[in-house]
């Protein structure tokens, strides 16, 4: 058996603040196989974005990775010098961000921004860079890419801008693309388009993808596997169908129950009582315990990861079968 494309184990990323250490990522482990799409789901503040950034060593100051490893094709990226990491960013592992308004430089033309991204890893002529940029723009569905190449970001709509950002991420045909809520800031109709196109591109190029989102519905339509994060930990993971059909962790169950599509018309939306805990002050045991209907004294100890088939979950009292909806 060969090593997985990406294997994250025991990853901890912390942010020292004036009022204590925020444990944004607190022991996250997962694997990503070639060509696989992993959906990383969680509420805002659950540490899913920080996890994404930690993979390529782009944690905001003063945060840092304090423990764990990120093995890409067997090589640990944690603690790698910036110059080595830089050679992997964009070339092997690329990233797309949430808000295309904020990611593209408003003062540089698309051509310049794409050329800089190409030049970061290869020495190519201006003409060759242009040709490649046009080809990739065409691929992500930008009409008349040749004439749009010299335009500036403000001359594109939000959806088109996100396509440009995706094109930049695809320039080097990376093996992994990390998509951090790339559709959240877009109109619903555009969201669906981008989602389908991303799925197609991933299949065509044979990339693996980590799709980070708070939206379980979006993730379920694109991911092969799913990992649910809560307060810096992955509480449940497994093949998307299995997890959605038969959630083990009460938090996953809660998320599913609160989906509008799962509610019959006229029925009240169900929600998880309580709020997410502060990362500065996590409970001793299971972080979800204060909100969990099944919590008891046992939950004061951190639950271990249970592995069953290709699924894992962290709960002392897992749901045994899907509750009636």
């Amino acid at each position, binding site marked *: 058996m060969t090593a997985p494309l990406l294997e994250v184990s025991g990853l901890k990323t912390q942010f020292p603040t004036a009022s204590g250490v925020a444990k944004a990522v607190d022991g996250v482990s997962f694997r990503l196989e070639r060509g696989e799409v992993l959906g990383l789901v969680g509420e805002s503040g659950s540490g899913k974005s920080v996890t994404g*950034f930690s993979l*390529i060593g*782009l944690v*905001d100051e003063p945060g840092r990775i304090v423990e764990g490893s990120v093995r890409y094709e067997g090589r640990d990226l944690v603690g790698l010098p*910036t110059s080595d990491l*830089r*050679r*992997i*960013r*964009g*070339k092997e592992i*690329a*990233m797309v*961000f*949430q*808000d295309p308004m*904020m*990611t*593209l*430089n*408003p*003062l*540089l*033309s698309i051509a*310049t921004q794409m050329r*800089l*991204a190409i*030049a*970061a*890893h290869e020495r190519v002529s201006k003409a060759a860079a242009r040709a490649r940029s046009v080809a990739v723009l065409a691929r992500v569905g930008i009409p008349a890419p040749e004439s749009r190449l010299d335009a*500036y970001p*403000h*001359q594109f709509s939000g959806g088109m801008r996100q396509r440009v*950002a995706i094109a*930049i*991420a695809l*320039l*080097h045909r990376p093996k992994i693309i990390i998509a951090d809520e790339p559709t959240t800031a877009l109109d619903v109709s555009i969201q669906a388009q981008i989602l389908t196109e991303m799925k197609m591109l991933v299949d065509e190029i044979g990339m693996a993808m980590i799709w980070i989102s708070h939206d379980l519905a979006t993730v379920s339509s694109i991911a092969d596997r799913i990992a649910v994060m809560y307060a810096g930990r992955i509480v449940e993971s497994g093949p998307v169908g299995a997890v959605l059909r038969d959630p083990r962790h009460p938090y996953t169950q809660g998320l599913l129950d609160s989906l509008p599509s799962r509610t019959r018309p006229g029925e009240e939306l169900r929600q998880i009582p309580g709020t997410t805990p502060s990362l500065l002050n996590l409970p001793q045991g299971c972080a979800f315990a204060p909100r969990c209907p099944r919590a008891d004294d046992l939950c004061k100890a951190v639950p271990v990861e249970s592995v069953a088939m290709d699924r894992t979950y962290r709960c002392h009292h897992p749901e045994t079968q899907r509750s009636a909806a």
Partner: protein
Amino acid sequence: MLGFIIQRLWQAGIVILAMSVLVFCGVFAVGNPIDVLISPDATQDIRAQVIAQYGLDQPLWRQYFTFFGRMLHGDFGQSFVYNMPVTQLILSRLPATLELVLFAVVGASLIGIPLGMYAGYRHESPAAKIIMGLSILGFSVPSFWIGLVLIMTFAVQLGWLPAGGRGETASLFGIQWSFLTGDGLKHMLLPAINLALFKFAMMIRLARAGTREIMLTDTIKFARAAGLSEGTVLVRHVLRLIAIPLVTIFGLELGSTLAFAVVTETIFSWPGLGKLIIDSITSLDRPVMVAYLMLVALLFVLINFFVDLTYALLDPRLRRARA
């Protein structure tokens, strides 16, 4: 774009007109030039003759219109003291000030911006703290005193550089410039440093603040995620994004440096405009004062105009909005 230019030119014209009234009335309030022009024991006839010659017997508004009409033709009258056309006098002094100011501001920017960007990029490092300390000093210490210390250290104690004057000049386009000769450059170094220190401090502060802010944005994160080297990120993205406020300040500082040159030129006996205006004020040479102030106003208006144009060049969003 054309509409924008016309609108700005129109505004500039009004500003110049308002300035001419203010300056003329203001300067008229300064002392009585007749006392300076004529020795106290001159006869009444000579007095009257001189007063008539300079038009000082006319009512103020009349004098203004004469002045304004002439000004449009670039004629600011005769200097009372130097006995030559003011325009000619000012033009003969302008190159000295211009080269000094340009050297100072360009030098301050070329050194200050990279230092400021570094201080913003590695804002926790000891080097960054030293840079910031320098800039606080540059802000606080009055520039005339720095001039004195520079003279004391490099001219008097070490004897490396001359304490004043323009040194040898060479001719280019029929104008004498100091920067073309080694000796002239030597003479220019101390006054240019003196003049540059304040701008230097300001460029450091602005570049640092801008860099710190920009480094936190998603634009930079995205560029890094694409594998751009830190150097490329700083030069192609950060520098570009902080350029707009820097250009404004560069422009405004170019103007205020012209004004500050008054102090530096006095200390280093640099024969430029600043020295001329100081001398004119002490000798109540009205035409020179008026012409100098009008020139400064004109320069400010022009600089602001070019700063606005540069904005449009730097920011594609404005280009479209104003086109």
